């Protein structure tokens, strides 16, 4: 077996396992280009390539392809409408604001009020939200409450 094959397999396994082996793995836009580079390096061990393509050109192709792949993944992840990134922003407040969009009427309001302890001392001034949802088809209305 050509040494390129050995290096390629070792590199692919190393970078592939890396994601699962360490607590805080590098981002995907780094890992996947490394794996791709390892696989491409293995291709450089093919006899025809070894005899017809110089090593410098092979390394340039590997580097260019890896950069292209890394850039593509980074762009995809940072795109607002893609699931990978926006999953981070799903929280209770967003769900309260976006749930129940199918009815005839939806109204959300933010309020602030002071709350007091049982001895009358002021606990603080707090925000909260109230939602009212109506359906004219079913002639019904229900409510929601959001406590930050």
């Amino acid at each position, binding site marked *: 077996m050509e040494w390129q094959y050995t290096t390629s397999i070792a590199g692919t396994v190393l970078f592939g396992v890396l994601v699962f082996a360490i607590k805080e793995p590098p981002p995907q836009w780094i890992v996947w280009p490394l794996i791709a580079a390892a696989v491409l390096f293995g291709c450089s061990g093919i006899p025809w390539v070894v005899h017809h393509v110089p090593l410098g050109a092979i390394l340039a192709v590997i580097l260019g392809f890896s950069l292209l792949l890394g850039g593509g993944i980074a762009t995809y992840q940072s795109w607002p409408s893609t699931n990978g990134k926006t999953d981070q922003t799903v929280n209770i407040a967003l769900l309260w604001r976006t749930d129940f969009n199918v009815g005839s009427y939806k109204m959300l309001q933010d309020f602030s009020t*002071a709350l007091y302890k049982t*001895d009358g001392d002021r606990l603080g001034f707090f925000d909260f939200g109230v*939602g009212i949802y109506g359906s004219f088809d079913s002639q019904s209305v229900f409510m929601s409450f959001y406590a930050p």
Partner: protein
Amino acid sequence: MDDARKNFHIWTAPKGDASQPISDNLIFTNKIYLYYENILNDEQINTLTNLYRSKGLEPVFRGFGYLEYRRLWIAASQEQTPVLPESVPLPMEAPVPFIDHSEQYIGGKKLPSLLSLFMTDFKGVGAVAGTWTDVTLRNGSQEVKQQVPIRVYNDIHNHVRFIALYVPPTAASFAIVKFLATSFLDQMNDLTKRVVAKDGQATDGAAQGYAANYPFSGAVYVYSDNTFSDDQMSELKKLYADQSAALEVRDFGYVIKTWNEIQSGGRAMPQEYKLTSGLPEPERRPKMTSYPARREREDSAWP
């Protein structure tokens, strides 16, 4: 919900869209979805469930469990990540939503209203004179009119005078208290003048002599059914301090303290009052409850 039924029907559709009022025909399902950021233990969930059910509501709790469920659902591409809808700002003419705190209950018992405390506090302090002022505030095309009862006390023990104001439940409470910072001294002096000249022939000299005997102590008590934020409170205190006055806001916290005093027997339950077009008047009790003392004795005599 009551507020929405009463007020929101006058909101116009801001962009001519399909906005519709919550009409009285819609039946409230009693279901309320509770979204909360904190982690509640089982006991707290049970307590809250019982509390909401005691009010006739059916709570559905949506906390971290619900959040994780939704996140997993989104991660599995079973649904789209929710996107905030474009919100439409309130029309300028729309009334500011307001929560009326004037009637409060603890353990099913009605607490004394701030109006009744305003009318019955400072008993035995000396002389008291009452009046009211009409406050009109403008915010663009919106005009707010509110009648504010005023009581001026002459403390015969300390030979000082002080003033109490009651701001009825309104969304413009802060603006009204702010406005009164520049006019309460005039109101107090005017009332003093009218009291001194009992027959209506007031003289500045008499009022001044009265004022000399009872100089203004600087105490201003504002009874407000609305609560103010910390920033608003600081601003109000500064405004009144600029008039050499020390503002004390008596809000729902004061009601709780008074209620605790009443419960411990340190104070009697005050007579309830109602707002009128003039001075507040005592509320007439229904016939069935017009003899509370006897009723209590009867109850206590029962086994």
